[in-house]
């Protein structure tokens, strides 16, 4: 499992370009910053109020005025800028965040995303997720392909949506899929799996790119 997460994080990291402003969701997406290609420096946006998130703070050296959006004490890069919530979400909604990388409970073939609520379960709330996926220029989903064998990539989401038609790219341990007007196009397939494997693990019809490539480990 750990290897699968690393594989996904490494592949997502390749989508990022030098100078990008990026917001990383909690969990697997936070691993992406550990695998940035050489020469690529991104500025991480932390929606609770700054651009220039660095890393987890060392125990005993925490600055209690700096937390990330999950509430953990963190450090900042030298070009950090701090702002209030209205400005933070203005930066998101205004299209100044190049990419947001987050997990999903369900994604539909048209790019609909559900990742904030399971009715009847503990109430958590959307936090900044709805603003992020409607505002960021590119929405990349980094997740395991299925949940305990159940399909997560579907014709239509059954859970309440986070936003309509917002997802651009899905990266799982099985491959890389692009959301297009024609449907979900597999552009890379991991060598451990066949076309039949990835189709069987998916709840909607997949289109395989003419120039389908192997999903690289490195």
């Amino acid at each position, binding site marked *: 499992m750990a290897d699968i997460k690393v594989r996904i994080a490494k592949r997502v990291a390749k989508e990022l370009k030098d100078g990008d402003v990026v917001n990383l969701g909690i969990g697997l997406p936070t691993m992406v910053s550990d695998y940035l290609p050489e020469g690529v420096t991104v500025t991480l946006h*932390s*929606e*609770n*109020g*700054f651009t220039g998130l660095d890393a987890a703070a060392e125990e005993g050296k*925490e*600055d*209690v*005025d*700096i*937390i990330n*959006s999950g*509430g*953990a*004490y963190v450090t*900042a890069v030298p070009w950090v800028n*701090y*702002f*209030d*919530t*209205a400005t*933070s*979400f*203005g930066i*998101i*909604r205004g299209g100044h965040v190049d990419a947001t990388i987050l997990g999903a409970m369900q994604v539909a073939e048209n790019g*609909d995303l559900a990742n904030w*609520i399971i009715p009847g379960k*503990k*109430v*958590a*709330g*959307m*936090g*900044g*997720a*709805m*603003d992020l996926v*409607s*505002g960021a220029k590119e929405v990349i989903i980094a997740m395991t392909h299925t949940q305990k064998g159940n399909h997560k990539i579907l014709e239509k989401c059954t859970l*309440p*949506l*986070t*936003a*309509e038609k917002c997802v651009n790219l899905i990266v799982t341990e099985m491959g890389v899929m692009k959301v297009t007007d024609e449907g979900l196009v597999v552009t890379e397939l991991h060598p451990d799996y066949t076309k039949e494997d990835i189709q069987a693990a998916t709840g909607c019809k997949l289109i395989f790119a003419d120039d389908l490539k192997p999903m690289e480990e490195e």
Partner: protein
Amino acid sequence: MINKVITADEAVAGVKDGMTIMVGGFLGTGSPEILMDALVRKGVKHLTVIANDGGLDQGQYGARTPRGVGKLLEHHMVDHIIASHLGVNPKLNEQFAEGTLTYTLVPQGTLAEKIRAAAYGLGGVLTPTGLGTPMETEKDELGRDKEVIEIDGKRYLLERPLHADYAFCRATIADTFGNFMCAKATKNFNYPMAGAADKVIVATEKLVEVGEVDPDTFAISGVLVDSVVGGEERWQI
């Protein structure tokens, strides 16, 4: 009046059962702790709270006591909470399950803009956030239907202003007139909430005289602030 300094107990003296209050902070960071403590001492009930979240419970992220709104939840002082995230402080889901607390969820960026709209005289804001989700189909915090407005071919949700009886903010430095600033990631909702309530109270770590520091130190004008309370302590973990 250029000296607005009062005590925490004086600052909350006018808060009555059933009022709506706003509280700055994000998972406790940037929350006005001494004002929450004063509200607990006063023992008001049936509050509606507008905040990003439910603060922290004792023990979370090294919190030695409940933090921010967590203090009000600890003492069952809240009937309804309007927030963007309710998953961290376990007191929230406990009280939802008991039926003593209800909630309205608002996306974080929308929550900030609804508050800012109330502070700065806007009739509402138009945002694409929430289209196609329960935010479009469910009623708002006052039971009103959401309205979709099309501008130049693009759809937006109309989100109405969110105003409170009291706003409780935390500052790192404030002067006696109420000009204030918040360090680093403690700004969060403290800036938009200043001005969004009938009474705005700022509790500050460092309290200076008027003219004592460079005016450019301050991000928020004291004209938006009714009272200033000194004695806020830096959070200890």
